[in-house]
């Protein structure tokens, strides 16, 4: 008998008893908010996780991004990033290609992406590898991640609402603040592996 058959037959002999219905009476959202309040809550929670939050509109975006990225010589850019976002920025744009090695990406200081959505109640941004976000590795290796969230359209209230809108077959990365550890005497330290600096730009769609 294969191990698979052995495990399955053990399960069939062992599983018995009641089969509970899953009660789904928990809340879809905690509290009710206007779109503006939802965006404010997202900003507050991101800040609590030591991400830096900026707000701007379409006109102000290129200057803001130019300023945020000015400390880097080069910056990673996903293939489908709207070109006008970086129209005022100086750093050399590095495009992630299948052939680029992790070591190569390690020489780039920053990365700029959009996102799939953001969750206000938890202060989370979710990336799904869409054209303005690129591969998972480009938001992981550089030390500085700038992420643009279109508000209020990309902001949902809660985790249940977020899952509803996501496609599970895409690679998903949920980010709540910069990389952090509390492993040494419970002192919180940013970094160790992922980006140590996370800037979130809330882009008003006027």
């Amino acid at each position, binding site marked *: 008998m*294969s*191990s*698979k058959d*052995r*495990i*399955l*037959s*053990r*399960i069939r*002999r*062992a*599983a018995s*008893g*009641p*089969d*509970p219905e*899953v*009660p*789904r*009476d*928990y809340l879809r959202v*905690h509290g009710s908010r206007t779109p503006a309040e939802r965006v404010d809550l997202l900003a507050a929670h991101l800040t609590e996780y030591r991400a830096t939050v900026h707000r701007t509109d379409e006109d102000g975006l290129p200057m803001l991004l130019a300023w945020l990225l000015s400390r880097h010589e080069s910056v990673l850019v996903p293939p489908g990033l709207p070109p006008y976002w970086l129209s005022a920025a100086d750093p050399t744009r590095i495009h992630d290609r*299948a052939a680029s090695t*992790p*070591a190569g990406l*390690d020489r780039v200081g920053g990365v700029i992406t959009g996102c799939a959505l953001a969750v206000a109640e*938890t*202060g989370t941004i979710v990336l799904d*590898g869409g054209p303005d976000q690129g*591969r*998972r*590795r480009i938001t992981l290796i550089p030390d500085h991640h700038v992420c643009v969230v279109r508000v209020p359209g990309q902001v949902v209230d809660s*985790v*249940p609402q977020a*899952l*509803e809108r996501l496609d*599970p*077959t*895409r*690679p*998903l*990365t*949920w*980010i*709540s*603040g*910069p*990389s*952090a*550890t*509390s*492993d*040494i*005497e*419970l002192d919180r*330290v940013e*970094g*160790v*592996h*992922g980006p140590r600096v996370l800037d979130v730009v809330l882009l008003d769609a006027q």
Partner: protein
Amino acid sequence: MTGTDLGMPAFPPFPEAAREAVGNEVLRANLRHATHTIRDKRARAVAELDDWDRLRAAGKAVKDHTLRHLDRYLLELEAAVTAAGGTVHWAVDAEEANRIVTGLVLATGEREVVKVKSMATQEIGLNEALEAAGIAAYETDLAELIVQLGHDRPSHILVPAIHRNRGEIRDLFRTEMGRWGRPAPEDLGDDPRELAEAARLHLREKFLRARVGVSGANFMVAETGTMVVLESEGNGRMCLTLPETLISVVGIEKVVPTFRDLEIFLQTLPRSSTAERMNPYTTMWTGLGPSKGADGDGPTAFHLVLLDNGRTDTLADPTGRQALRCIRCSACLNVCPVYERAGGHAYGSVYPGPIGAVLSPQLRGTAAPIDATLPYASTLCGACYEVCPVAIDIPEILVHLRERVVQGGPVTREGVRVRIRPAHGHTAERAAMRAARLLLDRPGALRAGERLLSRARRLRPRRLPGPGRAWTDTRALPDVPAESFRDWWARERKSPQK
């Protein structure tokens, strides 16, 4: 007959290990600080959700329903993972799982792997098995790195190196890092920031060249084949995305039916665990993705090893099986007055604290002295049950296992129903008495136990389960006083005792 190998050397019975641990002042101070800090923060994070009780009930029900139809959901999972370009392997025990993983790594031609912290691979002793095959396995979670450099064992589920303080960590980094790769800077100080930076540089070197990654998973979704890993540092993302081959070793109880079910656990796990609204990083991936890895986003080969190793035996026990609901949040450790004093090592397994006291003796059987004494490593104060996000009644299982140790009875071992004999009367009794003395000798521990007991009064059963049952058939249990005598004395005397 222990059958299940948890990859651990022989351990002394809990009372002996605990006696040694409670004499260690540094350990006790660190543990106290850790457990109290997390405990207080957690209570605030949980209070934020007014539907906490409903989320808890839903999480419990999802897990119970899945366990009831575990065969069906595992087959569904296998089909979904396979359709998405992954390969599924089934491992009955630790040995088989280790053999599969070792074979997969050797087939890549590589001799090193990077690992993200995984309790399942610790449980089966994978690192040791890989080492025996000439493969170096690097733990990449900061705490796990500390544990590995110190040739040590983890002592807490969430903060595995909590028994070490910053001075010790600096010394370890200075002496050991160079032997494994990039050495620590000569003048390394003991500031956590500096230490983290040293670890970052040391580990980054490994990530960037690693071609094989090994992980566990927090959840697997049957419907879609999606794997879910929650973490804080980013080392998980590194191990899950950069290598060409990814091997995930996951206990069969980690499956949930639908993608939607994650909405429950993504709310309860981070809050129960690190007391955050959400952990910094969660990665979800489905096989090799829609394009089957062709776009180079993530590994080009994915293997999932489904691990039994005593889980189906645990499933066969209607009382004990609820331990399989555990989502490894570690909340029960942080409220346990016994764990707080004894520390994680005393439990002699990768699963410490209250959950370890019920899980290890079920996965391994109760034949070894450590496993026979683990069900006594508790005051039965009930605090672990109250915090558990999937409502595992740990005290109930503890009493059930005590009964098994003392009276023997039917159990399932390696899929076969057998009847075990009682442990030698004096062994069990001695274990119980030593565990009691451990507490009675230490007024602080007893006081904590009493307080929690009076707080949990309304949950107190009318009848004692297990060996005490006959006695309570004809008597009512005495009421637990609203206030312990010690508290009353302290209050009456108005002493500022804490």
